Structures are given as C-alpha cells and as structure tokens.
C-alpha cells in the first residue's frame, strides 16, 4: 500500500510538472495560482491518506516488536484460591455428545479453524507459578506450527477448536489443581467444549495414570501414553512422546535389508524383571541380541543420553539403532516411550511390549505394517515370534518405520498437524484422507495403482455397446462401416462424430437404415481427441471406438471383442496389437508395428473400452499430452493405451489374429500407418508420453484372446464365432 501511494505521488508529481504544457494558453499569474491551489489540494489529500494508514502501520510495528518479546512479558494472571475447578474428564465423551459441531459450520474447504489463546502467566494467590517450567520449547514449537498452518484463525468467533497456551505437555512440572483453575479461567472455556490439550507425559508417582490428571471438563486430549481404559475412542487423539534427540541427530535413511543385530534393546530404565528376561534371551541367542544399558562411568547430563553401554563397550545412541532389524520398546512407568520415536527414525522395527497401550495415531495409522506388538507376558517368546516374520515383510516394515517417522513423528509440527488432521477428518468424514494416503509411503504411492474400476464384475450382455465412429468426409466408407457394424447383435447405439466443420453431414434420408438408434454429433474443431469425448449420447458402459474406414472386421469378430471386454471391463480390448521396445543404441523407446510375439498396446481404430476412460482422457490426461495429440494429429491411441495402463497397471487385450486394418493386398500409401515418418513420429510420441508420465506404464504380454474353439477341429456350424477373420 505504501508503495502504491508513493507511485501515485510520483505520477501526480509528473502531472504537475507537465501542467504548463497541458494549459499552454493560460496567463502566467493564473498558472502560478492554479499550481499553488493544486499543490495545496494534493498535500491535503496526502495528509488524509497518511491519516488513513498511519495508525494501522503503527499498530503493526507494535506487533513486530512484540514478536521479539520475552515469555516474561506475558500478562500475569493471579488465580484466586476459590477459583472454580473443572470437572474431571468425562470418559463417555464422544464427538457427538461433547463436541459442538455447529462451531465448525459448513465449510466448502472442509477445514476446521483453530484459535490459540494468547500467552498468559498464571500464578496462585501468593505468586507461585502454576508450572515449574512455564512454556516449554516443544509446546512453543507446536503452537507456532499451528499458527503457521492453514488451520489457524485469529478470530475467536470463527474458531472451531481452541488450543490453550497453557503448557501441559509434562504433567510432572504442573500443579494440577492450579492448572485446572487456569483452564477454567479461559474466556471461551465453556466446560472445555471444543478445547484441545496436548499432553505427552501423563501421570506421576506413584501410580502413573495413563491420561493427564488435570481436571479438564469436556476438553479433547491429545495424549501420549493412553491405555485402552483411558482413551476415548473417536474423541481423544493418541500422540507419540516427542524425542528431543531427533532434533539434534541426523540419521541418514538406511536401505532396508538385514542388519548386524537382530534384536536391540536400548532403553535404560527397564524393570529388573524384564531385564532379567532379556538377559535370558541373550544367553539363548547370543550375538543376534544386543542388550544396552546406561553407561555407569559417564557423568550425568545431555551427553550421557547419547551413549549406551554393554559390558564396558560404549555405543553411540541413537546411531546404534540403525544396526538392528528389531528394537525393543518396553513400557516403563508410562506406556508411551520417547524411544519409539528414535527407533522409527533409525528405520528399526519397534517391538512394542506395553499391554493396553494405544499406539500413536492408531486411529489412522496401520501399525501392523510398521511394528510388532507382543504382549508383555510373551516376552520370552519374542525371538521365536520375530524369527517367523518373512524377510520381505521385514524389509517392508523397515521402509514403513522411516516413513512414519518422517511424516508423523519427526517434529512437534508434524505431531501437531497430524493430530489436527485427525480431528479434521472426524468433522468432515466424507472428505477424510484415505487409508492409502495415511499409510502408503511415497515409493508405494508412486508405483501402486488404484484402479477406479476395482470391483470384479462381469457386466451383463444386455446393455450392449455404443459404437463411436469418428469421420471427416469419407461418406461412402462411413456408410459401409455403419452397415457392417449394425449387424453386430450387441450393438446398442451408433454415434457418428462428424469432425468436419466445413461440410454438413448428409441428409437423414441418405443414411443407411439400421435397427439401432443412430446419432450424429458435430464438433467445433477438427481434433483427434473428439473421438474420446464422453458424449452424453453414450449411455452404455462399453464403447467401441472405430474409424470410418475399418470395414473388414466381421460381425463375429466384433461381437467376440465385446464378449472379451465384458470379462475385462477395465482394459482396452482391441484388434491389431503394437509394441514398444527399448532401443539400446539410441537410448530411447521405439514403436514397433512388425509382427511380434508380444503386445503392449492395441490400436483404437477399433477397440472396446469403458466409458470411464473417456472422462479420464478428456479431463485427467496428464501434462500437455492432449494438446500434443491434437497438434500432431497422431498418437491418440498411444495416449489412450498409456492412460489406461497407468491407472490400472494392466496390459490391454488383443483379440483375434488381426494384425492390421487394411487388407493385406493394399499396400498403397493411403493408409498413414505405412508411412516412414509416421512411424518415427509414433516413436517420438512414446518417448514424449513416457517422460510426461514419469515412467513407462505399458505392460507387455504374449497372449491374445481367441474364441474357445478357434481353429479347433470342430464343425464350424457349432461354433459361436465361426467367422473370425484372418490377418
């Protein structure tokens, strides 16, 4: 805005200087008068402008200086002794009973709004703070992350979720009663409705409860270390215990595979009964197990947290975790252990022994793919249980652990955002992230396919198929094609796509008389992609794309093609097949139309496919492929083959021996396919498309589909499809 004003000032300055030129015939004294007047007006205006925006910018600089403020500058709030205490958390709370969904409202973006209370320092009547640490570094990081995210709103009236700035991450540093009073003092507390508390270390000596002991009314709790008895499924969020080590130590990602040790135990505070159990396992299995403990000779402090010892041998922690396939994560006083985070970071598969523990983010994460959960009682059987896991599964899990850490554990930001995403998914379940989005690592997301037609379903014969004929002006041949196709029993409708804008289609009376409806669609532009447009006139699932010069396909051949398509509705089913090859000399893909033993594409000059792929081709074709095809007037069939193979991961089906569309005798040049430059261009297409897709999705197969009794020594009369053409 300031810039804008300056610019306008310059402009008006110029204008004034040019003033004389604009009013040349004016008398000089008048001129001076005008100029003065104008300047006065202008100055007045500028002053008004200043008045308009100065106050605001003063405000913003004030904010700026506050940004750099100290925690100690936060306003002090004194809690009276008699200040109300919230009720203990209600175990029967669920989203539909304790959460006010109206506050989230209908929201086209399906995104909740989160408000953070400004920081305050709460002290009791005698001035002792309610928490020994005050705002911790981690909670500060978490709140900054939320305020940086698109969940954040500074407008308390629009907020759906409220996050207090009172740090309750570690219950040990809190005065429980006073903290509860402080919560109740929050201006929008309203029985804790829609409030979210983050806690990682719940409970305290001697019995360590598994959820935060601070009375909190109906507030949601994102807690580390819930047990199945304190976790309110679908209401609370189970979060990990953040490990501060991960902020300091960079562990490079390690390739999955066998490691030096099979099982590693790195925790220091293991109960002696369990340690004895582990020792026994070590005796039985020797080198495969590494049992580490605190180093006795090192001084206390941060450095000792980074070392582990085994009989005087010193190991670097957490680096040593990378040397083992499995790492033990035993319960301590609390169920949630920060070790879990270290172990995941190291790509070591956690073996979790903590009965009744609700694993972090278990609402959305599939821990079966990244961990082994063993009942504490079965600790002695741990080795046998782990040995029985197949190697490939171990590698999968190793990959998964690191991905979980990267995505959901690596920082307070990751933890906070995941918790909010989970709550967001509950409020807008129809827009929730899918299992795959939560659980598949990027590698799998890239290589796996999610076919849109995944249900194994053989559609009935009766709806038939719609033939879509793309034509320009070859009317005679078009009419022949129409007459031929109309003999196919399962044809339901014929759609002629008239791609010639300069000429009108022939009059209705001139068209061949056929038994099924015939519709003509006129296009606006002569584009190849018009062939794959999802016309509303196509009412059947099956589409037969056919060129206006394909006259040699027999009725039996077409009907059989439709029958095969019914068995493979998610694939392209076509007649002549083509192949892509890797040209080692040139180092690129090559198009092959020779008679080969393999097929990876079918020509769409005559091919059956699902109407869904028309949508996909028209609206979801990646990159500029569609424009490329229209510009080159070529390769629309290759593009379609790429598209279908990419989304289904399956090869097309070639039916019957047909190798080319033209009769073998006519080697004339009228068919484009024989043209040399045409072939070069098609090779180019393959290379272009492969680079746009970022991979080569086409699959090569060595089979084609023929009728069951094809070429069998059997009376032709009894065959369903006797008239299958030849090459």
């Amino acid at each position, binding site marked *: *805005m300031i810039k804008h004003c300056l610019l306008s000032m310059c402009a008006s300055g110029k204008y004034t200087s040019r003033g004389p030129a604009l009013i040349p015939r004016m008398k000089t004294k008048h001129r001076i008068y005008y100029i003065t007047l104008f300047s006065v007006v202008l100055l*007045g*205006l500028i002053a*008004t402008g200043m008045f308009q*925006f100065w106050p*605001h910018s003063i405000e913003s600089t004030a904010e700026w200086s*506050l*940004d750099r403020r100290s*925690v100690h500058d936060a306003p002090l709030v004194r809690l009276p002794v008699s200040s109300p205490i919230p009720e203990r958390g209600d175990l029967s709370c*669920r989203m*539909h009973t304790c959460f006010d969904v109206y506050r989230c409202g209908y929201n*086209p973006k399906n995104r909740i709004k989160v408000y953070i209370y400004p920081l305050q320092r709460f002290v009791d009547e005698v001035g002792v703070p309610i928490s020994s*640490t*005050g*705002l*911790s*570094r981690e909670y*500060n990081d978490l709140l900054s992350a939320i*305020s940086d995210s698109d969940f*954040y709103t500074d407008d308390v009236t629009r907020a759906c979720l409220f996050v207090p700035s009172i740090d309750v991450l570690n219950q040990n540093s809190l005065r429980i009663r006073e903290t509860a009073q402080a919560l109740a003092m929050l201006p929008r507390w309203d029985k804790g409705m829609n409030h979210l508390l983050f806690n*990682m270390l719940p409970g305290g000596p*001697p019995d360590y409860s598994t959820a935060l002991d601070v009375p909190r009314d109906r507030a949601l709790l994102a807690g580390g270390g819930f047990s199945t008895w304190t976790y309110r*499924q679908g209401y609370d969020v189970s979060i990990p215990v953040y490990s501060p080590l991960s902020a300091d130590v960079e562990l490079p990602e390690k390739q999955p595979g066998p490691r030096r040790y099979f099982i590693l135990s790195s925790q220091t*505070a293991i*109960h002696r009964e369990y340690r004895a159990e582990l020792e026994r396992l070590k005796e039985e299995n020797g080198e495969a197990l590494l049992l580490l403990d605190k180093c006795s000779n090192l001084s*206390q402090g941060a450095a*000792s947290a980074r070392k582990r010892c085994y009989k005087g041998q010193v190991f670097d922690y957490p680096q040593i975790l990378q040397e083992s396939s499995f790492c033990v994560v035993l319960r301590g*006083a609390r169920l949630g252990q920060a070790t879990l985070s270290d172990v995941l970071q190291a790509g070591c598969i956690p073996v979790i022994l903590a*009965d009744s523990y609700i694993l972090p983010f278990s609402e959305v994460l599939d821990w*079966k793919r990244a961990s082994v959960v063993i009942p*504490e009682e079965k600790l002695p059987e741990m080795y046998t249980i782990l040995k029985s896991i197949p190697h490939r599964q171990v590698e999968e899990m190793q990959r998964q652990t690191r991905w979980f850490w990267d995505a959901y554990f690596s920082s307070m930001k990751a933890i906070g955002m995941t918790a909010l995403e989970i709550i967001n998914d509950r409020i807008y379940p129809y827009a929730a992230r*899918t*299992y795959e989005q939560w659980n598949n690592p990027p*590698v799998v997301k890239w290589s*796996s396919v999610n*076919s*849109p037609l*995944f*249900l*194994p379903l*053989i559609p*009935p014969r009766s709806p038939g198929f719609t033939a879509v004929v793309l034509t320009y002006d070859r009317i005679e041949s078009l009419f022949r094609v129409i007459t031929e196709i109309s003999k196919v029993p399962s044809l339901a409708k014929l759609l002629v796509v008239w791609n010639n804008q300069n000429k009108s289609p022939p009059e209705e009376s001139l068209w061949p008389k056929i038994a099924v409806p015939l519709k003509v669609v006129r296009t606006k532009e002569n584009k190849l992609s018009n062939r794959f447009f999802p016309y509303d006139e196509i009412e059947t*699932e099956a589409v037969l794309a056919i060129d206006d010069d394909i006259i040699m396909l027999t009725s039996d051949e077409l009907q*059989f093609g439709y029958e095969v398509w019914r*068995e493979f509705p998610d694939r392209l089913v076509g007649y002549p097949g083509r192949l892509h090859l890797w040209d080692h000399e040139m180092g690129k893909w090559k198009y092959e139309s020779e*008679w080969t*033993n393999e097929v990876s594409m079918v020509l769409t000059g005559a091919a059956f496919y*699902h109407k*869904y792929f028309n*949508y996909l081709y028209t609206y979801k074709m990646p990159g500029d492929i569609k424009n490329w095809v229209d510009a080159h007037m070529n390769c629309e069939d290759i593009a379609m083959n790429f598209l279908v193979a990419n989304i289904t991961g*399956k090869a097309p089906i070639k039916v019957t021996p047909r190798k080319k569309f033209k009769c073998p005798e006519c080697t004339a040049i009228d068919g484009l396919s024989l043209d040399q430059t045409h072939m070069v261009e098609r090779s180019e297409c393959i290379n272009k498309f492969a680079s746009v897709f970022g991979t080569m999705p086409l*699959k090569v197969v*060595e*089979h084609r589909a*023929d009728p*069951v*009794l094809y070429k*069998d020594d059997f009376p032709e009369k009894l065959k369903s*499809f006797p008239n299958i053409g030849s*090459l």
Partner: protein
Amino acid sequence: MQAKKRYFILLSAGACLVLLFYFGGAQLPASGRNRHDRSRHGYRSDQPWPHFSDPLHQFLPWDQPDTEEYNIHISPRQKRDVNTSVYKGKRCRMDSCFDFSRCKKNDFKVYVYPQQKGEKISESYQNILSTIEGSRFYTSDPGQACLFVLSLDTLDRDQLSPQYVHNLKTKVQNLPLWNNGRNHLIFNLYSGTWPDYTEDLGFDIGQAMLAKASISTENFRPNFDVSIPLFSKEHPRTGGERGFLKYNSIPPFRKYMLVFKGKRYLTGIGSDTRNALYHVHNQEDVVLLTTCKHGKDWQKHKDARCDKDNAEYDKYDYREMLHNSTFCLVPRGRRLGSFRFLEALQAACVPVMLSNGWELPFSEIINWNTAAVIGDERLLLQIPSTVRSIHQDKILALRQQTQFLWEAYFSSLEKIVLTTLEIIQDRVLQQESRSSVMWNSHPGGLFALPQYSAYLGDFPFYYATLGGYPSCQSINNSIKSHFTPAAVASQFRHIIIVLWNCDKPLPAKHRWPATTVPVIVIEGENKVMSSRFLPYETIITDAVLSLDEDTVLSTTEVDFAFTVWQSFPERLVGYPARSHFWDSNKERWGYTSKWTNDYSMVLTGAAIYHRYYHFLYTNFLPASLKGMVDQLANCEDILMNFLVSAVTKLPPIKVTQKKQYKETMMGQSSRASRWADPDHFAQRQTCMNKFASWFGGMPLVHSQMRLDPVLFKDQVSILRKKYRDIERL
C-alpha cells in the same frame, strides 16, 4: 468562464481523489489481514504466535529418575494382575476379561453348549449355532475351546417381544462352564424396550463379549465387543444374494440423489431426526418420506404433518427408489441401527449415516469412510449439499466398495457370524492377524488367511496395491505320482516336487531322470486325493504347476501358460476345460466335458496357479467336502475350481494346447486312469451339486475366450513365432 470551468474540474478531480483515498483507507485493514495470511505460509516472521527470544526449557528432562523409582516398587506382573481385577464389566478389555491361556497356540476353537430340551430357540439363533457348528472353528470338547457360545437364545432381549426368553439370568448362572462369562460370546440383535430402549440385556453378562447390533459408542468396549449389523429373520443362512450392482454406470448419478422411506416416531427417543426430514425433502431428487401410520394408536399422537406426510409416502415405491438412488439415508430409528443399512449396502446405494453414536458394524476392521457417508444428525440440513459436493470418482469408488463389503461380510448370516469369529481370532492370535488391507480390499478377510503369511506379496491378490506384478518368478512343479520328461525342460521351473501317492514303493534313485533342478519326493501319508493340494513347505515359489502322472505337456506349452499366469496370478490357468450348466428338468447343476463354446473350469491335472490356493484348499474348506473328495478319489479339481472362483468371482483361464494332449490326457488310451471309470462322470455331477450347496450358490463363472500366443496359427513364418511347438501336431 473557462477559468471557472477549470476550477470546477480541478475541484471535482480533487474530490474524486479524496474519495479514492477513503476507499484505499478502508481497504487497508483488509490488506493487513492478507499479510497475516501470507505469514502463515512462512514468508514473514510476524506471525500471530510470537517468536520468543528467551531460551525455553525442554518438556522432558534428560534423566527420568521417577521411572526408576517406580520400577523398584511395582512389579509389572503385579500391575497386570491389578488391571485384571480392576477393569471389569463396562470396562472389560481383552487384557482384563479374556483368558488367553485357553486358546492354545494357533488354535482358535469355539464350543457351543448343547441345546436343552424344551428351550425355545428362534430360527435366526438356530442358524447362528449351526453355522458355528459347521465351521472349521467348531469343537465339541469344552476343554479345547477358546470361546464359548450359549445355546440360550439371546438375540431378542426386548421384553415386549414374543421371542423374549424369560429367566435367562438363572439359566445362565446355572451353566457349569459359565465362569462368570469369561471367554463367552453373546449374540444380540435387540435390547431394551419402549420407552427408553436401553442397551441392557436384562441379565448379568459378567465378563462375556457381546456381538451386538445397534451398539452405541458409549457402551461399546473397543477391541472386546463386536458390532454386528441388524439383519432380518429372512436373511439367508449361506450364500446369500449378490449385490445389485451389475455394471458401473458413467456418470455415476442415478435418478434420485438421496432417498429414504420409513416410519416416523413423533415422540420419544430417536424421533427428532426423522421428524425433521421433511425440511430437506424436495420432491425431486431428494426424496425423504415418512409415515406416522404404524402401531395401534398412531392417531392419538398424530401431529399436523402426518396426513400430508402419509399421502406423500404412498406415492413412491421403496424398491424403485432403492434401485435408482445414488445415496440412501440411514437415519436412526428407536435403536441406532436399522434394516435400511444392509438394504442400501446391497442395492449399491451409498448409505448416508444419520445415527450419532452408532458403532458401525465390524467397525474394528472395516474402514467405513470408503463405503458410506457418515453424517451428523445435528447437521441434517447440510446433508444435501454435502452429498452433492462428493466427486463423481468418489461416488464410483464408494458404490463399488458397498458391493465388495456386502458380498464379503454381510450377504449371509454365515458371513456375519464367521466375520465375528475371525475378528476375535485375529485378536487372540495377534501375530497372525489380518492387516487393514486384507479386510478392506478384494477378496476380503474371510478368504485371506493370515496364518499363511504376514507378507501381502505372498498372496495372489495384492500385487497392484504393492506396485508391480510377480516378475520373473520361478515355477514349481508339483506332480502327482511321477512326471513326464517334457515338463522338466521348462525354462522357468525351479523345483520339482513329486507326490508319491501310490501303494507301490518308490523307485530306486538311479531310475529317476537327471534334472538340473532339485527334485523332492514326498511320500503321501494317507494316499488321498486332497494331499495333492496340501501346502507343502517345500513349495517355495509362488506359481505351482500341478500335473497328473499321465499328462503330456510340452515345454513351450508350460512356458506360455506361465507367462499368462503372470498376468493373472489370482486365477487358475489350465489347458483342458470343462463347463457347468443348470439342468432345469432335474433342477440341479449339470457337468459337461463336451466341447463347448464356453467353459467354467479347468482341470487341475495340468494347471498353473498360485501356491496360496494350496493353503486355502487345505485350511478353508470344511472336512466334509475334503472327505468326500478323498472318499470318491474324484472331484478334487472341481472343488479347486469352485474355491478359486468363489474367491475371485471370475472364471479360470484356458490356454491353448497341442491337439494330442486332449486325446491322450483324457485317458482313453491309458486304461488304468480313473477317467475310464463309468461312475466317474456321475460322481462329478453329484460333487458339483454338493459343493454348490456348501458354497450357498454357484460360484463358477463362464468364459468364452481362450488365450493363445500372439502369432498362434497365423500365416507367417514359423521362425517368427516364439511358441512354435504348440502348433505342431
């Protein structure tokens, strides 16, 4: 005058500028907000949550002295015992209320109490009991059992219902094995009665697990209870109807967007939502109809809308709406669950749930977000805009998933009961439990047995999910009796297993042909047919080529079939094919070996398939069917075809073969072959009908195509062809 004009112009220009500035000024606060927006993406540091310059403490101190102190005091074993004694009743969990020691390793057996004379049992409950008794989990020895099921009908606990069983409390307490309900499973569909419909069963269930319909999240004990769907008395025991979706229509919209037709309760519990439905009804594509006409004294409570609603209600046909709607509303009734749910699921009408607090059926394993829209009763008015905002691709996926779930877990009472048991088994065996992928993708948890492997890639179903197909895997020849030299030369074979299923002793070692791959000979212990499909541990490859002793196959034929199998790893790929048909005169299934234009089975005397089917055949099928096969020494291939088609819902694949094979293979030449037996054919017919009745329907599917090599019998030089031998006679 001109000067005055100029004054005027100047002044007005000035006024305009002033106005402009005012507007500019008004915009200033807005632009200030924009700056905040930007800062959220991290461009600027003046974010709403301030940056504190002072060093902050860490929340977690480096040393954890309290943990150590704790460790000294309480033994973890004591702690566990404390849990078991504290968490009872409504707080029961597997950890505290279930005795794992009763379930011996890898053996999950269910005991059903013998039925007492004079005890009336509803047909539904009778069906549940007989399903368990017919399942592979059943044991008649309570000492072996891990789970106990009562023979007292607990399905209907509504006191006003005629099915209500009285004095259940004492009856249950008197059971000798009751043990306060430990390791017991209680099935229930209805509980409580008018007016409050509580979820109390009217007797003390102790520590028993509940498999209950319409259970609320408040009462549901996670990972302990099982939420089952509400099903009607007419729900079929086995098999069950298939889903109504015959094909995927594009675009996926149907005539109606959202429909509902049902009772309205006017007053009392659960009446609010249905009473408010008329606000959303628009008579066009959102058709929500209610009637007050139910019960005896409906006139008494009748409100102002009743007559209008009733008239509207009668205008529409429920079945027609169900079949022609994209979404179906499933609002709560008196109880949380309603029949509408399963009806919508079967009709491929995506359920829109309006039942706050209902723990959806099998919620422990089914990810309902992929098959239903979960709405909130409080936001009823938003429902139309919510469903309209759902993308077409999502509708297509939701609809297909309803069909998958219906057929996998809900279409018959048997499936509902078995799913319940499998869920509990997964909890008990823990290490050998299904992952979410196995439960939520085709073919579903009942067909994917976790005891086989923990690794998804070991199954034939999940290649696409994992990315990629079985690449250059090797093949495994499992041959009955002894093999032909031809098969040995196949380039893909990895290991050969000979199952010596003959009473004669094994031939001396030197008489075996020399091969480059290991040959393992297994002497069948029982010499029965089913041992052909035992999951031998020596089978280490994914593909198994099963051969009969008298099969003659050339190397090329095997090689080609193997490349075909790689594209269809979940199917049977074989050579000679057979077909089934419905014999309407005899009202039964017929079997034919004639040359026909289609087929639905391939003979396993020469077929390639995934080794998982060995495991499934042995562990999934009931002893009764396997016993029948062994006794007849016949039909094992039909049973395998039934099984694979039931899993895939697709036909097998026939590949081309040399002419001679068809003649010799079928045994006219070899007299000793079982094919020569005249009873053979009749037996196979009987088998088919027996199998079909166990599967609750005919799983076989016809196919009209055969897969040939690309250049098969083409008039091109034989030298061009890769699989030349197949064409030679």
